[in-house]
């Protein structure tokens, strides 16, 4: 359909492009500002003189960071929890979603099992009951606390289940007729057919793992076991004295806070925390879009 552009249309388009471009720039400014701060000398930043161009250009923050052991330890933990956590979550999600995607006739008790998982979305013991539970299970100060509790995410199970439902039953029936078992059907037929959806779930889980920080703060006493995001959180708390009044920090935590430097160093670390996501995101955006629009509306 070809639209003949009237005068009003042209005016509208100019205005529309301008508004969107303005908003887009507004959304990018915080990140450019962060980058500028990371390359600026602190004396300019603290006076609010750095906007988008570094003042008193210095690479000091990055040089210092290159030798900062705590940063790389935290980064390593983040990478590990993202890789392991995503892999384990994916296995559990797929294995749980597959049986639940069958009809009631094929899998007796399906509705009951679905409710068993659904209830946990609405009802839980709360933060402190969870804390005492992990204490009993020996998960405090244990890397597994990043991986296991969230592995069977009900939302992703539901999403995966809905994807599996979209695959025609006839394919499965034909395979079963040829003597294939349920595991063969799942791995040889369903998973290959659901690959785009699996990619979506992998990406959402991986980003969720990378971004988690509260579990580190809550369940680890030892800051050397923090993932990057929790480490960055303690950095923010330490730079703002008013926040500390509400916090009880252990001596080890206080010690770790002393080693955290000025604004450019903070900015550099935050920027490096964004970098992995900012680099992969533009290329993988379509998977996210697909996951949101096809799967289900996750609020």
């Amino acid at each position: 359909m070809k639209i003949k552009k009237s005068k009003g249309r042209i005016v509208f388009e100019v205005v529309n492009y301008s508004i969107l471009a303005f908003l887009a720039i507004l959304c990018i400014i915080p990140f450019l500002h962060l980058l500028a701060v990371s390359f600026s000398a602190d004396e300019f930043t603290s006076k609010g003189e750095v906007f988008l161009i570094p003042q008193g250009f210095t690479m000091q923050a990055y040089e210092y960071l290159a030798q900062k052991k705590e940063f790389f330890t935290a980064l390593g933990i983040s990478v590990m929890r993202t890789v392991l956590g995503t892999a384990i979550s994916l296995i559990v999600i797929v294995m749980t979603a597959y049986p639940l995607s069958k009809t009631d006739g094929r899998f007796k008790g399906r509705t009951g099992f679905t409710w068993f998982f659904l209830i946990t979305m609405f009802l839980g013991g709360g933060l402190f009951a969870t804390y005492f539970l992990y204490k009993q299970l020996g998960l405090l100060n244990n890397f597994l606390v990043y991986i296991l509790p969230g592995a069977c995410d009900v939302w992703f199970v539901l999403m995966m289940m809905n994807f599996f439902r979209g695959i025609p039953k006839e394919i499965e029936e034909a395979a079963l007729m040829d003597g294939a078992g349920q595991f063969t059907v799942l791995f040889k037929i369903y998973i290959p057919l659901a690959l785009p959806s699996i990619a979506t779930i992998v990406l959402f889980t991986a980003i969720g793992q990378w971004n988690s920080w509260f579990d580190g703060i809550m369940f680890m006493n030892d800051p050397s076991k923090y993932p990057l995001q929790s480490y960055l959180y303690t950095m923010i708390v330490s730079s703002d004295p008013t926040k500390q009044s509400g916090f009880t920090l252990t001596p080890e935590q206080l010690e770790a806070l002393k080693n955290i430097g000025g604004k450019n160093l903070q900015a550099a670390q935050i920027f490096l925390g964004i970098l992995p996501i900012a680099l992969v995101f533009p290329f993988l955006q379509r998977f996210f879009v697909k996951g949101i629009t096809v799967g289900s509306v996750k609020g």
Partner: protein
Amino acid sequence: MLLPGIILTLIFKYGSMFGIVMAFQDFNIYKGTFLGQEWASDHGFGNFIYVFKMEKFWQAVFNTLLISGIKIILGIIVPLLLAILINEVSKRWFSRFVQTTFFLPFFLSWVILGSILLEMFSYGGIVNTIIESIFGTRIMFFLDNNWFRTLIILSDVWKGMGYNMVIFLAAIMGVDETLFEATEIDGGNRFQQIVHVMLPSIAPVVILVMTLSIGGLLNGGFDQLLVMYNPMVYEGGDIIDTFVYRLGMFGDRQVDVASAVNLAKSVVTIILMGGTYYFAYKKFDYRIF
């Protein structure tokens, strides 16, 4: 095949549900489990009575409803407007570029976004330098309760807007093209097409998104506030979740009272969710499973 999922859910989700029992106990944290604890006063409802008498609790409830309510409303209107404007863009690369910039913050944590905002909006930060050069004064965004609340709400809209924008864009793409053509033949301009054809066509999706957001009314953004708030703005920024967190974390560590609030919150949320999902099912035939 279901076994791993069931075991994990039993241990971690059902395992923590003793918190529901905790709500009715006078919980001694040194015993560590809910076994062998004393029951709370007033036939077990002592924790509820205690917290419902606290002025600070009701302040937190008020803040939660206010912050969350405005976030939900703006979180629909802003993405809807963006989706409509983006849909009018004919240049593919421009459309993709703005979508990416609007969508990116959704994938960053509040630690990251919060720390950037803390730096930019601080008293000596760049935003205040700009404000001073125009208006001659500086604003204490993190000390003034009203400014703080505004900042919390707007930054949440910024972080979340890409998500609903994508949903609305997909809905707009799904509108039957012939409807627009018919309006055009009848002499309707583009604006009239949007008001009379597009909006009514995507209304079900918009209402569905709104309905489903209501389930989160009592949340208000725990992560965000934990990163951005400080004791000076508890009055305007303390929400139920942060209130409960401090109650159980610091001072007398009243984890039993915290569990009671959590249980009360769960009950209200279940009623809200039940109601909204029933509505979504009846009205739009939407089912989550």
